[in-house]
């Protein structure tokens, strides 16, 4: 089936079909779902943070026990917030990049409904004790085939316009194409192989590979792909070097899949494989450097935009935090460092920095830019947009520093062979700070949702002909 093409070959021929190109309603549906799951996830995180300081108001209720809430927290972010926000944004980005609509509108709504079923079933399954024993793959085994089918449908729906596009592809489309294939394969590897094919430590190795690949092969390519699209259009100038961006893409493609074994340092896995994973991780740091250099090269001469243009500020804050998180990676994959930080809160801080500090912030920036365009109304309040940014950024930076330090203290406590209780006593002040940092981030999200609500309730703006979107 060949999708209709929006022909832009002749400048004199007016295009009147833009609404058919991008279905704004589905983007909004995805954003609504994403923000709902973000609230649920943050509630779960808050409950876990309170539990750590021994303040659990839900004590005795098995369904709402902290272990289950923790899984709801991580899954709601991965499959609820990130997946929904990415899918919504892809419905905007891919048609505009390829000048072709997605395969089918009905298909898009079917995928939307199916994905919400998958996420709700995952939450319900976890609370009822049906979680699969794979970290970040706790989706119950009975919903895995539906999720796998959903990922296949997503790939078909979006790949159709990409494959039909002619000429050298823009780097964003390379990233997206890879993400559709990788996510499908990664999900299958993590959820089916340890469950049905291999067992024991081998299954553990696959599960660890899955966690890492989910970040690097699902979230990272979609996140960077979107940055390569939104940053140039907001700065109104092309990316500094398209060639360099392709170096980054192919570097990720060839180096990333071997990294997962760095989660298994000091395990019975042969040492040459552990060393291989360490080296490939450090190789990826060079790839990351090319990407960051490219974006800061693009910003050159437009630095003021970081102050005045809120989405750009979100994006570049995320990029700085991405640089920090990757620098951390280069350190923490070494055997020396692992000895100290393994199983400590350092890792939790690192995970929050990646998921919230980088990818969630990019998506927040994208939503800040797109929501007025989707609803045809300006933001109700710029101040609330600023509050959203500052509460989120201050919250995540404090949480990251706090948990990083907590991790070091825990590591030193364990390595000095003190009793376990000593490490928890040392951690307590950090865990208290963590609650307030989390509350700040949660406050930012609530402010954002309130601002969206007031924006939707506001009057429709009369749009001047040929008005250019300004941020």
């Amino acid at each position, binding site marked *: 089936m060949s999708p209709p093409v929006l022909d832009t070959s002749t400048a004199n021929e007016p295009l009147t079909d833009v609404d058919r190109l991008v279905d704004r309603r589905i983007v909004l549906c995805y954003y609504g779902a994403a923000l709902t799951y973000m609230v649920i996830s943050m509630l779960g995180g808050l409950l876990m943070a309170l539990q750590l300081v021994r303040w659990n108001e839900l004590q005795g209720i098995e369904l709402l026990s902290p272990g289950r809430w923790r899984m709801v927290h991580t899954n709601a972010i991965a499959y609820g917030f990130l997946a929904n926000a990415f899918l919504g944004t892809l419905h905007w980005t891919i048609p505009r990049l390829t000048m072709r609509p997605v395969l089918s509108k009905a298909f898009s709504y079917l995928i939307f409904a199916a994905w919400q079923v998958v996420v709700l079933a995952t939450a319900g399954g976890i609370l009822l004790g049906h979680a699969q024993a794979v970290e970040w793959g706790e989706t119950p085994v009975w919903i895995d085939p539906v999720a796998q089918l959903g990922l296949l449908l997503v790939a078909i729906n979006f790949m159709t316009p990409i494959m039909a596009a002619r000429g050298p592809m823009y780097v964003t489309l390379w990233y997206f194409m890879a993400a559709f294939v990788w996510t499908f394969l990664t999900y299958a590897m993590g959820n089916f192989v340890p469950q049905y094919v291999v067992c024991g430590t081998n299954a553990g190795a696959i599960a660890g590979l899955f966690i890492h690949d989910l970040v690097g092969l699902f979230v990272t390519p979609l996140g960077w792909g979107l940055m390569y699209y939104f940053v140039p259009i907001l700065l109104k100038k092309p990316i500094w070097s398209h060639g360099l961006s392709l170096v980054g893409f192919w570097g990720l493609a060839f180096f990333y*899949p071997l990294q997962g074994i760095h989660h298994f340092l000091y395990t019975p896995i042969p040492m040459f494989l552990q060393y291989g994973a360490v080296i490939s991780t450090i190789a990826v740091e060079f790839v990351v450097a090319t990407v960051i250099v490219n974006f800061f090269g693009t910003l050159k001469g437009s630095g003021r935009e970081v102050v005045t243009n809120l989405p750009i500020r979100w994006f570049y804050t995320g990029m700085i935090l991405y640089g920090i998180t990757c620098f951390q990676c280069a350190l923490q994959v070494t055997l020396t460092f692992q000895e100290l930080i393994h199983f400590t809160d350092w890792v939790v801080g690192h995970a929050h920095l990646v998921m919230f500090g980088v990818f969630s912030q990019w998506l927040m920036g994208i939503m800040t830019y797109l929501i*007025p365009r989707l609803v045809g109304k300006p*933001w109700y309040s710029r101040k609330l947009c600023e509050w959203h940014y500052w509460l989120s950024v201050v919250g995540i930076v404090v949480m990251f520093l706090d948990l990083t330090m907590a991790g070091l203290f825990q590591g030193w406590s364990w390595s000095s062979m003190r009793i376990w209780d000593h490490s928890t006593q040392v951690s307590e002040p950090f865990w208290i700070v963590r609650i307030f940092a989390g509350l700040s981030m949660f406050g930012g999200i609530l402010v954002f949702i309130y601002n969206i609500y007031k924006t939707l309730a506001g009057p429709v703006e009369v749009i001047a002909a040929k008005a250019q979107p*300004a941020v």
Partner: protein
Amino acid sequence: MLRIVDNDPGDTAPEPRTRRLWTVCCVVFFLGPAMYGFGTKFYELVRVFQGDSTGAFAVTPIVNYLLAGCGFLMLFAWAARNGMFRDIERAKFEMLENEHKLDEIKNFAPSHTYAASSRR
């Protein structure tokens, strides 16, 4: 100002001999040791797998990597063959030009992002 770089193959000047020599030297210098390293490690993997029943530990992630790597190598070859890396900077100008056209056709956006009428 946006511009589209002309992709006429007739404009391409023949590659200078020194550049070609330089490329070959780089390939030999970087790829040679890398291929040697990879080959020896792969041989080590096969030895581990043959000599020890628990060597299966190592095989699954490596096979995963090799499958993914082969897939991307084929995609890379396909892309190179289909001119995806020729006139490599063109795509970034086209992308911006398409965006510009779409914004001109129909205003997806309010003329400004924040309500001008209020100081909220």
